[in-house]
Protein backbone atom coordinates (compact mmCIF):
# COMPACT_ATOMS: atom_id res chain seq x y z
CA UNK A 1 0.00 0.00 0.00
CA UNK A 2 1.12 3.53 -0.65
CA UNK A 3 1.74 5.65 2.41
CA UNK A 4 2.21 8.87 0.50
CA UNK A 5 0.81 9.79 -2.85
CA UNK A 6 1.75 13.08 -4.46
CA UNK A 7 -0.46 13.83 -7.44
CA UNK A 8 0.32 16.53 -10.03
CA UNK A 9 1.57 18.93 -7.39
CA UNK A 10 2.70 22.40 -8.45
CA UNK A 11 3.90 25.21 -6.24
CA UNK A 12 4.17 28.74 -7.57
CA UNK A 13 5.59 31.77 -5.77
CA UNK A 14 4.24 34.68 -7.80
CA UNK A 15 5.42 34.09 -11.34
CA UNK A 16 8.05 31.60 -10.28
CA UNK A 17 7.23 27.89 -10.41
CA UNK A 18 9.28 26.11 -7.77
CA UNK A 19 7.57 22.72 -8.17
CA UNK A 20 6.10 21.87 -11.53
CA UNK A 21 3.48 19.10 -11.87
CA UNK A 22 5.23 16.48 -9.75
CA UNK A 23 3.72 13.06 -9.07
CA UNK A 24 5.17 10.15 -7.10
CA UNK A 25 4.27 7.64 -4.42
CA UNK A 26 6.06 6.20 -1.42
CA UNK A 27 5.17 2.68 -0.28
CA UNK A 28 5.11 1.39 3.31
CA UNK A 29 8.65 1.06 4.58
CA UNK A 30 10.10 2.54 1.42
CA UNK A 31 12.99 5.00 1.51
CA UNK A 32 12.64 7.50 -1.34
CA UNK A 33 15.20 10.21 -2.00
CA UNK A 34 14.62 13.52 -3.73
CA UNK A 35 17.96 14.36 -5.26
CA UNK A 36 18.83 17.49 -7.15
CA UNK A 37 20.98 20.61 -7.17
CA UNK A 38 20.36 23.44 -4.76
CA UNK A 39 17.29 25.49 -5.73
CA UNK A 40 15.55 22.77 -7.74
CA UNK A 41 12.51 22.73 -5.43
CA UNK A 42 13.26 19.83 -3.06
CA UNK A 43 12.54 21.69 0.18
CA UNK A 44 9.44 23.27 -1.32
CA UNK A 45 8.11 19.87 -2.31
CA UNK A 46 8.85 18.48 1.17
CA UNK A 47 7.09 21.47 2.74
CA UNK A 48 4.03 20.75 0.63
CA UNK A 49 4.02 17.13 1.85
CA UNK A 50 4.43 18.19 5.49
CA UNK A 51 1.78 20.90 5.16
CA UNK A 52 3.89 24.05 5.71
CA UNK A 53 2.92 25.07 2.20
CA UNK A 54 -0.33 24.56 0.36
CA UNK A 55 0.25 23.57 -3.24
CA UNK A 56 -0.94 25.87 -6.02
CA UNK A 57 -2.28 22.78 -7.77
CA UNK A 58 -2.45 19.04 -7.17
CA UNK A 59 -3.23 16.75 -4.31
CA UNK A 60 -1.43 15.01 -1.43
CA UNK A 61 -2.70 11.79 0.10
CA UNK A 62 -1.29 10.18 3.23
CA UNK A 63 -2.56 6.72 4.09
CA UNK A 64 -5.19 7.07 1.39
CA UNK A 65 -6.67 10.25 2.89
CA UNK A 66 -6.58 13.57 1.06
CA UNK A 67 -4.59 15.94 3.30
CA UNK A 68 -3.91 18.71 0.77
CA UNK A 69 -5.58 21.33 2.98
CA UNK A 70 -4.88 19.76 6.37
CA UNK A 71 -2.53 21.90 8.51
CA UNK A 72 0.85 20.42 9.50
CA UNK A 73 -0.14 19.90 13.14
CA UNK A 74 -2.90 17.54 12.03
CA UNK A 75 -0.80 15.55 9.52
CA UNK A 76 0.73 12.24 10.36
CA UNK A 77 4.18 13.28 9.15
CA UNK A 78 7.32 14.12 11.07
CA UNK A 79 10.08 16.29 9.74
CA UNK A 80 13.77 16.14 10.50
CA UNK A 81 14.99 19.65 9.78
CA UNK A 82 18.26 20.65 8.12
CA UNK A 83 18.84 23.17 10.93
CA UNK A 84 17.63 20.55 13.46
CA UNK A 85 15.20 23.19 14.84
CA UNK A 86 15.59 21.93 18.42
CA UNK A 87 13.77 23.99 21.05
CA UNK A 88 16.62 25.84 22.77
CA UNK A 89 14.74 26.31 26.05
CA UNK A 90 13.90 22.63 26.49
CA UNK A 91 16.12 19.77 27.59
CA UNK A 92 16.81 16.86 25.26
CA UNK A 93 14.17 14.77 27.07
CA UNK A 94 11.61 17.56 26.72
CA UNK A 95 12.48 18.05 23.06
CA UNK A 96 12.00 14.34 22.45
CA UNK A 97 8.63 14.40 24.23
CA UNK A 98 7.34 17.64 22.71
CA UNK A 99 5.05 15.92 20.24
CA UNK A 100 4.00 13.22 22.69
CA UNK A 101 2.76 15.83 25.16
CA UNK A 102 0.95 17.51 22.30
CA UNK A 103 -0.76 14.19 21.62
CA UNK A 104 -1.60 13.97 25.36
CA UNK A 105 -0.18 10.48 25.64
CA UNK A 106 -0.15 9.06 29.18
CA UNK A 107 3.11 9.62 31.07
CA UNK A 108 3.97 5.93 31.12
CA UNK A 109 3.79 5.62 27.36
CA UNK A 110 5.75 8.86 26.89
CA UNK A 111 8.47 7.53 29.11
CA UNK A 112 8.56 4.22 27.31
CA UNK A 113 8.85 5.87 23.87
CA UNK A 114 11.44 8.31 25.18
CA UNK A 115 13.61 5.54 26.59
CA UNK A 116 13.22 3.50 23.44
CA UNK A 117 14.39 6.31 21.18
CA UNK A 118 17.10 7.51 23.58
CA UNK A 119 18.56 4.03 23.68
CA UNK A 120 18.41 3.50 19.93
CA UNK A 121 20.08 6.85 19.28
CA UNK A 122 22.56 6.65 22.12
CA UNK A 123 21.17 9.75 23.87
CA UNK A 124 20.56 8.28 27.33
CA UNK A 125 23.41 10.26 28.89
CA UNK A 126 22.30 13.52 27.25
CA UNK A 127 18.64 13.61 28.30
CA UNK A 128 18.96 16.40 30.87
CA UNK A 129 21.17 18.63 28.72
CA UNK A 130 20.04 21.62 26.71
CA UNK A 131 20.53 21.49 22.92
CA UNK A 132 23.38 24.01 22.97
CA UNK A 133 25.37 21.69 25.22
CA UNK A 134 25.41 18.96 22.55
CA UNK A 135 27.73 18.29 19.63
CA UNK A 136 26.43 18.61 16.08
CA UNK A 137 26.06 14.86 15.73
CA UNK A 138 24.12 14.62 18.98
CA UNK A 139 21.82 17.48 17.98
CA UNK A 140 21.17 15.71 14.72
CA UNK A 141 20.20 12.57 16.61
CA UNK A 142 17.85 14.51 18.88
CA UNK A 143 16.17 15.98 15.80
CA UNK A 144 15.81 12.48 14.37
CA UNK A 145 14.61 11.08 17.69
CA UNK A 146 12.02 13.85 18.11
CA UNK A 147 10.53 12.86 14.76
CA UNK A 148 10.71 9.13 15.50
CA UNK A 149 8.95 9.28 18.88
CA UNK A 150 5.87 10.43 16.98
CA UNK A 151 5.75 7.08 15.14
CA UNK A 152 4.49 8.90 12.06
CA UNK A 153 3.30 7.26 8.84
CA UNK A 154 6.09 9.04 7.03
CA UNK A 155 9.33 10.72 8.10
CA UNK A 156 10.59 13.61 6.05
CA UNK A 157 14.26 14.50 6.00
CA UNK A 158 15.53 17.79 4.65
CA UNK A 159 19.27 17.41 4.11
CA UNK A 160 19.66 16.20 7.69
CA UNK A 161 23.37 15.47 7.39
CA UNK A 162 24.58 18.60 5.63
CA UNK A 163 25.92 20.15 8.85
CA UNK A 164 27.98 17.14 9.86
CA UNK A 165 31.55 16.39 8.89
CA UNK A 166 32.24 13.72 6.29
CA UNK A 167 33.14 10.82 8.58
CA UNK A 168 30.14 11.33 10.85
CA UNK A 169 27.88 11.65 7.81
CA UNK A 170 28.66 8.14 6.69
CA UNK A 171 27.94 6.56 10.05
CA UNK A 172 24.72 8.54 10.59
CA UNK A 173 23.56 7.52 7.10
CA UNK A 174 23.70 3.88 8.08
CA UNK A 175 22.05 4.63 11.40
CA UNK A 176 19.13 6.47 9.79
CA UNK A 177 18.59 3.66 7.33
CA UNK A 178 18.71 1.03 10.08
CA UNK A 179 16.20 2.84 12.29
CA UNK A 180 13.90 3.50 9.36
CA UNK A 181 13.96 -0.22 8.61
CA UNK A 182 13.44 -1.12 12.30
CA UNK A 183 10.29 0.98 12.51
CA UNK A 184 9.30 0.08 8.94
CA UNK A 185 8.72 3.76 8.22
CA UNK A 186 8.04 5.34 4.88
CA UNK A 187 10.67 8.02 4.35
CA UNK A 188 11.21 10.91 1.98
CA UNK A 189 14.77 12.07 2.12
CA UNK A 190 15.98 15.27 0.50
CA UNK A 191 19.62 15.71 -0.41
CA UNK A 192 21.88 17.23 -3.03
CA UNK A 193 24.59 14.68 -2.23
CA UNK A 194 24.55 11.91 -4.84
CA UNK A 195 26.70 9.62 -2.68
CA UNK A 196 24.13 9.83 0.10
CA UNK A 197 21.30 9.16 -2.33
CA UNK A 198 22.99 6.13 -3.89
CA UNK A 199 23.98 4.63 -0.56
CA UNK A 200 20.66 5.05 1.27
CA UNK A 201 17.75 4.93 -1.14
CA UNK A 202 15.32 2.28 -2.27
CA UNK A 203 14.36 4.69 -4.99
CA UNK A 204 15.75 8.02 -6.18
CA UNK A 205 13.79 10.84 -7.80
CA UNK A 206 16.12 13.21 -9.60
CA UNK A 207 14.75 16.74 -9.59
CA UNK A 208 15.65 19.57 -11.89
CA UNK A 209 13.97 22.98 -12.14
CA UNK A 210 10.96 21.82 -10.16
CA UNK A 211 10.37 18.70 -12.24
CA UNK A 212 11.25 15.05 -11.75
CA UNK A 213 13.79 14.29 -14.44
CA UNK A 214 14.14 10.57 -13.78
CA UNK A 215 13.25 8.07 -11.09
CA UNK A 216 14.46 4.57 -10.34
CA UNK A 217 16.57 2.45 -8.04
CA UNK A 218 20.12 3.67 -7.42
CA UNK A 219 21.56 1.06 -9.81
CA UNK A 220 19.03 1.88 -12.53
CA UNK A 221 19.76 5.56 -12.26
CA UNK A 222 23.49 5.05 -12.20
CA UNK A 223 23.67 2.49 -14.98
CA UNK A 224 20.94 3.85 -17.20
CA UNK A 225 20.70 7.61 -16.93
CA UNK A 226 18.19 8.94 -19.45
CA UNK A 227 19.58 12.45 -19.81
CA UNK A 228 22.96 14.10 -19.71
CA UNK A 229 21.80 16.03 -16.62
CA UNK A 230 21.24 12.78 -14.72
CA UNK A 231 24.39 11.16 -16.09
CA UNK A 232 26.45 14.12 -14.98
CA UNK A 233 24.71 14.64 -11.64
CA UNK A 234 25.02 11.02 -10.50
CA UNK A 235 28.60 9.90 -10.77
CA UNK A 236 30.97 11.18 -13.44
CA UNK A 237 30.27 10.96 -17.13
CA UNK A 238 31.89 11.76 -20.44
CA UNK A 239 29.09 13.16 -22.55
CA UNK A 240 29.35 13.33 -26.32
CA UNK A 241 27.22 14.54 -29.21
CA UNK A 242 26.49 11.61 -31.51
CA UNK A 243 24.85 10.90 -34.85
CA UNK A 244 23.47 7.44 -35.64
CA UNK A 245 25.11 6.08 -38.77
CA UNK A 246 23.47 2.70 -38.85
CA UNK A 247 22.18 -0.35 -36.99
CA UNK A 248 24.63 -3.25 -37.12
CA UNK A 249 22.40 -5.91 -35.55
CA UNK A 250 19.44 -6.07 -33.17
CA UNK A 251 21.05 -4.26 -30.21
CA UNK A 252 24.06 -2.67 -31.88
CA UNK A 253 24.24 0.80 -33.38
CA UNK A 254 27.12 2.62 -35.02
CA UNK A 255 27.46 6.31 -34.15
CA UNK A 256 29.80 9.05 -35.19
CA UNK A 257 31.17 11.38 -32.50
CA UNK A 258 33.87 13.99 -32.02
CA UNK A 259 36.22 11.27 -30.80
CA UNK A 260 35.57 8.97 -33.75
CA UNK A 261 33.10 6.27 -34.69
CA UNK A 262 31.82 4.13 -31.81
CA UNK A 263 29.77 0.95 -31.56
CA UNK A 264 26.96 1.11 -28.97
CA UNK A 265 25.07 -1.81 -27.47
CA UNK A 266 21.70 -0.77 -26.10
CA UNK A 267 18.47 -2.59 -25.17
CA UNK A 268 16.50 0.52 -25.99
CA UNK A 269 16.76 2.11 -29.41
CA UNK A 270 18.13 5.64 -29.69
CA UNK A 271 15.54 8.34 -29.18
CA UNK A 272 16.63 10.37 -32.22
CA UNK A 273 19.14 10.34 -35.05
CA UNK A 274 21.19 13.05 -33.40
CA UNK A 275 21.48 12.58 -29.66
CA UNK A 276 23.73 12.71 -26.60
CA UNK A 277 25.59 9.63 -25.44
CA UNK A 278 27.76 9.03 -22.39
CA UNK A 279 30.23 6.63 -20.86
CA UNK A 280 31.53 6.42 -17.30
CA UNK A 281 35.24 7.22 -16.71
CA UNK A 282 35.69 4.07 -14.60
CA UNK A 283 34.53 1.85 -17.49
CA UNK A 284 37.55 2.53 -19.70
CA UNK A 285 39.38 -0.73 -20.57
CA UNK A 286 43.16 -0.74 -20.68
CA UNK A 287 44.82 -1.38 -24.06
CA UNK A 288 43.51 -1.52 -27.60
CA UNK A 289 40.39 -3.68 -28.06
CA UNK A 290 38.40 -5.15 -30.91
CA UNK A 291 36.00 -2.20 -30.91
CA UNK A 292 35.97 1.43 -29.84
CA UNK A 293 39.72 1.70 -29.43
CA UNK A 294 41.09 5.07 -28.50
CA UNK A 295 44.65 6.31 -28.43
CA UNK A 296 45.22 9.81 -27.12
CA UNK A 297 47.77 11.96 -25.29
CA UNK A 298 47.28 12.55 -21.56
CA UNK A 299 46.90 16.28 -20.82
CA UNK A 300 46.44 16.23 -17.03
CA UNK A 301 46.43 13.74 -14.28
CA UNK A 302 45.12 13.91 -10.73
CA UNK A 303 45.96 11.29 -8.14
CA UNK A 304 42.84 10.44 -6.09
CA UNK A 305 44.19 7.75 -3.81
CA UNK A 306 42.53 4.55 -4.91
CA UNK A 307 42.48 5.67 -8.53
CA UNK A 308 43.99 8.29 -10.80
CA UNK A 309 42.02 10.71 -12.95
CA UNK A 310 43.52 10.99 -16.39
CA UNK A 311 42.35 13.60 -18.87
CA UNK A 312 42.93 12.76 -22.51
CA UNK A 313 42.23 14.92 -25.50
CA UNK A 314 40.98 13.82 -28.90
CA UNK A 315 40.13 16.26 -31.66
CA UNK A 316 39.94 19.01 -29.09
CA UNK A 317 37.48 17.10 -26.90
CA UNK A 318 38.60 16.31 -23.34
CA UNK A 319 37.61 12.94 -21.89
CA UNK A 320 38.10 11.73 -18.37
CA UNK A 321 39.35 8.26 -17.51
CA UNK A 322 39.65 6.74 -14.06
CA UNK A 323 42.54 4.40 -13.77
CA UNK A 324 42.79 1.95 -10.87
CA UNK A 325 46.47 1.39 -11.19
CA UNK A 326 49.63 2.92 -9.85
CA UNK A 327 52.89 3.43 -11.78
CA UNK A 328 51.37 5.75 -14.35
CA UNK A 329 54.03 8.41 -13.95
CA UNK A 330 55.93 7.62 -17.14
CA UNK A 331 52.89 7.23 -19.43
CA UNK A 332 52.25 10.24 -21.67
CA UNK A 333 49.60 8.75 -23.90
CA UNK A 334 46.86 6.27 -23.30
CA UNK A 335 45.68 3.31 -25.32
CA UNK A 336 42.23 2.19 -24.23
CA UNK A 337 38.85 0.92 -25.41
CA UNK A 338 35.22 1.30 -24.37
CA UNK A 339 32.96 -1.75 -24.42
CA UNK A 340 29.80 -1.11 -26.51
CA UNK A 341 27.57 -1.97 -23.52
CA UNK A 342 29.25 0.76 -21.48
CA UNK A 343 27.99 3.47 -23.80
CA UNK A 344 24.52 4.83 -23.01
CA UNK A 345 22.06 6.64 -25.27
CA UNK A 346 20.73 9.84 -23.70
CA UNK A 347 18.30 12.56 -24.79
CA UNK A 348 17.90 13.90 -28.32
CA UNK A 349 19.96 16.92 -29.29
CA UNK A 350 18.06 20.11 -29.74
Amino acid at each position, binding site marked *: MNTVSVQNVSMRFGDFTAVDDVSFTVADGEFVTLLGPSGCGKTTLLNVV*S*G*FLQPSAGKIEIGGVDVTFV*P*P*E*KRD*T*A*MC*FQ*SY*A*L*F*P*HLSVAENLQ*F*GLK*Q*KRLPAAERKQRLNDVAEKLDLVAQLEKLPNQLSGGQQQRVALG*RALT*MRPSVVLFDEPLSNLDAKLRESVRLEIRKIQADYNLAAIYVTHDQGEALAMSDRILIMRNGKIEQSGTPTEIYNFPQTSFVADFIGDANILDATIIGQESEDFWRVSTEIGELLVKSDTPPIAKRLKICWRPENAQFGAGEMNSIEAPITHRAFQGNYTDLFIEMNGVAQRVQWRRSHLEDITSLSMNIRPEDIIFLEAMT
Partner: protein
Amino acid sequence: MKRWLKISLLLMPGLGLILIFIGSVVYIAIAQSFGYFNLSGESGFSLEYWAKMFDRLSYSRAIGYSLYIGVASAFLAVIFAYPLAIWLRRPFAGSLFISAVLKAPLLVHGLVVAFLYINIISYNGIVNQLLQALGIWDGPHRLQNDSGAVGVLILQTWKNMPFALLLLSGAVQAIGDDLLDAAADLGAGPFDRFRRVIAPLAVSATQAALVIVFVGALADFSFQVIAGPINKQSLSQLMVFFKGYGRWHDAAVIAVTLMGLGIAGSGVLALFSRFVLRGGRLS
Protein backbone atom coordinates in the same frame (compact mmCIF):
# COMPACT_ATOMS: atom_id res chain seq x y z
CA MET B 1 48.21 52.68 35.79
CA LYS B 2 46.22 50.14 37.71
CA ARG B 3 43.57 48.38 35.67
CA TRP B 4 40.68 49.14 37.98
CA LEU B 5 41.68 52.79 38.11
CA LYS B 6 41.77 53.03 34.34
CA ILE B 7 38.35 51.43 34.05
CA SER B 8 36.93 53.68 36.73
CA LEU B 9 38.28 56.79 35.04
CA LEU B 10 36.89 55.70 31.69
CA LEU B 11 33.48 55.06 33.22
CA MET B 12 33.44 58.34 35.15
CA PRO B 13 31.90 60.65 32.53
CA GLY B 14 28.94 58.40 31.78
CA LEU B 15 28.20 55.98 34.54
CA GLY B 16 29.68 58.25 37.18
CA LEU B 17 27.37 61.10 36.31
CA ILE B 18 24.35 58.83 36.30
CA LEU B 19 25.26 57.31 39.63
CA ILE B 20 25.87 60.72 41.17
CA PHE B 21 22.55 62.09 39.97
CA ILE B 22 20.46 59.06 40.82
CA GLY B 23 22.36 58.37 43.98
CA SER B 24 22.03 61.88 45.32
CA VAL B 25 18.33 62.10 44.51
CA VAL B 26 17.59 58.77 46.12
CA TYR B 27 19.73 59.69 49.09
CA ILE B 28 18.02 63.02 49.62
CA ALA B 29 14.54 61.53 49.24
CA ILE B 30 15.26 58.83 51.78
CA ALA B 31 16.99 61.20 54.16
CA GLN B 32 14.21 63.73 53.88
CA SER B 33 11.55 61.10 54.60
CA PHE B 34 13.34 60.50 57.90
CA GLY B 35 13.39 64.15 58.85
CA TYR B 36 16.73 65.33 57.46
CA PHE B 37 17.20 68.23 55.02
CA ASN B 38 14.45 70.24 56.59
CA LEU B 39 14.05 73.37 54.47
CA SER B 40 12.17 75.35 57.10
CA GLY B 41 13.25 74.22 60.52
CA GLU B 42 15.38 71.86 62.48
CA SER B 43 16.75 68.73 60.80
CA GLY B 44 17.17 65.45 62.61
CA PHE B 45 16.28 61.77 62.53
CA SER B 46 12.58 61.10 62.98
CA LEU B 47 10.13 58.30 62.16
CA GLU B 48 7.22 60.63 62.66
CA TYR B 49 6.57 61.30 58.96
CA TRP B 50 6.36 57.61 58.10
CA ALA B 51 4.26 56.83 61.14
CA LYS B 52 1.75 59.57 60.40
CA MET B 53 1.62 58.67 56.73
CA PHE B 54 0.78 55.05 57.50
CA ASP B 55 -2.20 56.27 59.49
CA ARG B 56 -3.64 58.30 56.62
CA LEU B 57 -6.42 56.67 54.64
CA SER B 58 -5.54 58.75 51.55
CA TYR B 59 -2.08 57.16 51.59
CA SER B 60 -3.18 53.53 51.61
CA ARG B 61 -5.88 54.30 49.05
CA ALA B 62 -3.37 55.98 46.76
CA ILE B 63 -1.06 52.96 47.06
CA GLY B 64 -3.87 50.62 46.08
CA TYR B 65 -4.98 52.84 43.25
CA SER B 66 -1.49 53.38 41.82
CA LEU B 67 -0.69 49.68 42.00
CA TYR B 68 -3.94 48.97 40.18
CA ILE B 69 -3.10 51.46 37.41
CA GLY B 70 0.49 50.21 37.16
CA VAL B 71 -0.32 46.51 37.02
CA ALA B 72 -3.38 46.86 34.79
CA SER B 73 -1.55 49.13 32.33
CA ALA B 74 1.40 46.77 32.15
CA PHE B 75 -0.75 43.74 31.40
CA LEU B 76 -3.03 45.57 28.97
CA ALA B 77 -0.07 46.92 27.00
CA VAL B 78 1.54 43.47 26.78
CA ILE B 79 -1.73 41.67 26.02
CA PHE B 80 -2.45 44.00 23.11
CA ALA B 81 1.13 44.00 21.87
CA TYR B 82 1.63 40.22 21.77
CA PRO B 83 -0.80 39.29 19.00
CA LEU B 84 0.41 42.25 16.97
CA ALA B 85 4.04 41.24 17.39
CA ILE B 86 3.22 37.71 16.23
CA TRP B 87 1.09 38.95 13.36
CA LEU B 88 3.89 41.26 12.19
CA ARG B 89 6.59 38.65 12.72
CA ARG B 90 7.11 38.02 9.03
CA PRO B 91 6.86 40.89 6.57
CA PHE B 92 3.88 41.00 4.20
CA ALA B 93 2.48 43.64 1.86
CA GLY B 94 1.69 46.67 4.00
CA SER B 95 3.20 45.30 7.20
CA LEU B 96 5.81 48.03 7.35
CA PHE B 97 3.11 50.68 7.12
CA ILE B 98 1.02 49.01 9.80
CA SER B 99 3.90 48.74 12.23
CA ALA B 100 4.82 52.38 11.59
CA VAL B 101 1.26 53.49 12.35
CA LEU B 102 1.21 51.33 15.48
CA LYS B 103 4.35 53.02 16.73
CA ALA B 104 3.05 56.54 16.15
CA PRO B 105 1.93 56.95 19.80
CA LEU B 106 5.61 56.90 20.76
CA LEU B 107 5.98 60.24 18.98
CA VAL B 108 2.91 61.95 20.47
CA HIS B 109 3.15 63.39 23.94
CA GLY B 110 0.81 61.86 26.49
CA LEU B 111 -0.70 65.21 27.46
CA VAL B 112 -1.76 65.92 23.90
CA VAL B 113 -3.44 62.55 23.67
CA ALA B 114 -5.11 63.00 27.03
CA PHE B 115 -6.69 66.27 25.90
CA LEU B 116 -7.75 64.73 22.62
CA TYR B 117 -9.26 61.84 24.49
CA ILE B 118 -11.36 63.91 26.91
CA ASN B 119 -12.54 65.96 23.96
CA ILE B 120 -13.77 62.88 22.18
CA ILE B 121 -15.58 61.46 25.19
CA SER B 122 -16.89 64.76 26.53
CA TYR B 123 -20.56 65.29 27.25
CA ASN B 124 -21.13 66.70 23.77
CA GLY B 125 -18.24 64.87 22.13
CA ILE B 126 -18.36 62.59 19.12
CA VAL B 127 -18.62 59.33 21.07
CA ASN B 128 -21.80 60.53 22.79
CA GLN B 129 -23.18 61.91 19.55
CA LEU B 130 -22.41 58.76 17.63
CA LEU B 131 -24.00 56.42 20.16
CA GLN B 132 -27.09 58.60 20.27
CA ALA B 133 -27.28 58.80 16.49
CA LEU B 134 -27.07 55.00 16.36
CA GLY B 135 -29.93 54.84 18.82
CA ILE B 136 -27.89 52.93 21.39
CA TRP B 137 -28.13 55.69 23.99
CA ASP B 138 -31.18 57.88 24.59
CA GLY B 139 -29.26 60.83 25.95
CA PRO B 140 -25.66 61.89 26.56
CA HIS B 141 -23.64 60.03 29.21
CA ARG B 142 -20.93 61.39 31.43
CA LEU B 143 -17.79 59.52 30.39
CA GLN B 144 -15.08 61.86 31.60
CA ASN B 145 -13.14 61.08 34.77
CA ASP B 146 -14.99 57.78 35.24
CA SER B 147 -14.57 56.26 38.67
CA GLY B 148 -13.17 52.94 37.34
CA ALA B 149 -10.25 54.83 35.77
CA VAL B 150 -11.06 53.28 32.41
CA GLY B 151 -9.97 56.54 30.78
CA VAL B 152 -6.55 56.40 32.42
CA LEU B 153 -6.12 52.75 31.43
CA ILE B 154 -7.10 53.46 27.82
CA LEU B 155 -4.56 56.28 27.67
CA GLN B 156 -1.84 54.26 29.38
CA THR B 157 -2.40 51.33 27.05
CA TRP B 158 -2.49 53.55 24.00
CA LYS B 159 0.75 55.21 25.02
CA ASN B 160 2.62 52.11 26.20
CA MET B 161 1.45 49.40 23.83
CA PRO B 162 3.81 50.55 21.03
CA PHE B 163 6.71 50.36 23.42
CA ALA B 164 5.79 46.85 24.49
CA LEU B 165 5.32 46.02 20.80
CA LEU B 166 8.82 47.24 20.03
CA LEU B 167 10.33 45.01 22.71
CA LEU B 168 8.20 41.97 21.90
CA SER B 169 8.68 42.30 18.13
CA GLY B 170 12.40 42.02 18.57
CA ALA B 171 12.08 38.88 20.65
CA VAL B 172 9.41 37.26 18.50
CA GLN B 173 11.26 37.99 15.26
CA ALA B 174 14.37 36.34 16.64
CA ILE B 175 12.48 33.03 16.82
CA GLY B 176 13.21 31.16 13.60
CA ASP B 177 10.50 29.94 11.25
CA ASP B 178 11.91 26.45 11.45
CA LEU B 179 11.33 26.35 15.21
CA LEU B 180 7.66 27.19 14.77
CA ASP B 181 7.42 24.81 11.82
CA ALA B 182 8.92 22.09 13.99
CA ALA B 183 6.36 22.76 16.71
CA ALA B 184 3.52 22.63 14.18
CA ASP B 185 4.94 19.47 12.72
CA LEU B 186 4.88 17.90 16.17
CA GLY B 187 1.20 18.68 16.52
CA ALA B 188 1.15 22.16 18.10
CA GLY B 189 -1.61 24.42 16.79
CA PRO B 190 -1.31 28.23 16.85
CA PHE B 191 -2.08 28.61 20.56
CA ASP B 192 0.23 25.78 21.64
CA ARG B 193 2.99 27.21 19.46
CA PHE B 194 2.60 30.44 21.40
CA ARG B 195 2.37 28.72 24.78
CA ARG B 196 5.18 26.23 24.32
CA VAL B 197 7.65 28.01 22.04
CA ILE B 198 7.10 31.74 21.61
CA ALA B 199 6.20 32.65 25.20
CA PRO B 200 9.09 30.82 26.89
CA LEU B 201 11.57 32.22 24.36
CA ALA B 202 10.27 35.77 24.75
CA VAL B 203 10.27 35.77 28.56
CA SER B 204 12.97 38.40 28.94
CA ALA B 205 11.34 40.84 26.55
CA THR B 206 7.95 40.32 28.20
CA GLN B 207 9.44 40.93 31.61
CA ALA B 208 11.14 44.08 30.39
CA ALA B 209 7.92 45.36 28.83
CA LEU B 210 5.83 44.62 31.92
CA VAL B 211 8.33 46.20 34.29
CA ILE B 212 8.94 49.35 32.29
CA VAL B 213 5.25 49.99 31.62
CA PHE B 214 4.43 49.19 35.26
CA VAL B 215 6.98 51.61 36.70
CA GLY B 216 5.85 54.38 34.36
CA ALA B 217 2.14 53.87 35.01
CA LEU B 218 2.64 53.44 38.77
CA ALA B 219 3.95 56.98 38.97
CA ASP B 220 1.37 58.38 36.53
CA PHE B 221 0.49 61.98 37.09
CA SER B 222 -0.63 63.65 33.87
CA PHE B 223 -3.19 61.09 32.68
CA GLN B 224 -4.58 60.92 36.20
CA VAL B 225 -4.94 64.68 36.50
CA ILE B 226 -6.67 65.05 33.15
CA ALA B 227 -8.67 61.88 32.71
CA GLY B 228 -8.58 60.11 36.07
CA PRO B 229 -11.37 59.69 38.60
CA ILE B 230 -12.12 62.78 40.68
CA ASN B 231 -12.53 60.80 43.89
CA LYS B 232 -9.23 58.91 43.66
CA GLN B 233 -5.68 60.08 43.98
CA SER B 234 -2.58 58.48 42.60
CA LEU B 235 0.62 58.47 44.66
CA SER B 236 2.16 61.11 42.38
CA GLN B 237 -0.89 63.30 42.84
CA LEU B 238 -0.59 62.93 46.60
CA MET B 239 3.10 63.73 46.47
CA VAL B 240 2.49 66.88 44.46
CA PHE B 241 -0.30 67.80 46.83
CA PHE B 242 2.05 67.66 49.86
CA LYS B 243 4.79 69.47 48.02
CA GLY B 244 2.32 72.23 47.15
CA TYR B 245 1.91 72.89 50.87
CA GLY B 246 5.65 72.86 51.42
CA ARG B 247 5.43 69.55 53.29
CA TRP B 248 8.67 68.17 51.87
CA HIS B 249 9.05 65.38 54.40
CA ASP B 250 5.61 63.96 53.58
CA ALA B 251 6.29 64.29 49.85
CA ALA B 252 9.59 62.45 50.37
CA VAL B 253 7.83 59.62 52.18
CA ILE B 254 5.62 59.16 49.10
CA ALA B 255 8.58 59.41 46.73
CA VAL B 256 10.35 56.66 48.64
CA THR B 257 7.12 54.65 48.68
CA LEU B 258 6.93 54.97 44.89
CA MET B 259 10.52 53.81 44.50
CA GLY B 260 9.97 50.90 46.84
CA LEU B 261 6.75 49.85 45.13
CA GLY B 262 8.45 50.21 41.76
CA ILE B 263 11.25 47.86 42.74
CA ALA B 264 9.12 45.36 44.62
CA GLY B 265 6.35 45.39 42.01
CA SER B 266 8.86 44.92 39.20
CA GLY B 267 10.35 41.95 40.96
CA VAL B 268 6.95 40.37 41.51
CA LEU B 269 5.87 41.02 37.93
CA ALA B 270 9.11 39.65 36.53
CA LEU B 271 8.89 36.47 38.58
CA PHE B 272 5.20 36.07 37.87
CA SER B 273 5.59 36.50 34.12
CA ARG B 274 8.54 34.13 34.05
CA PHE B 275 6.55 31.55 35.97
CA VAL B 276 3.53 31.82 33.70
CA LEU B 277 5.38 31.99 30.39
CA ARG B 278 7.67 29.12 31.27
CA GLY B 279 4.63 26.97 31.90
CA GLY B 280 4.82 26.92 35.69
CA ARG B 281 8.55 26.71 36.22
CA LEU B 282 11.01 29.34 37.38
CA SER B 283 14.27 27.77 36.26
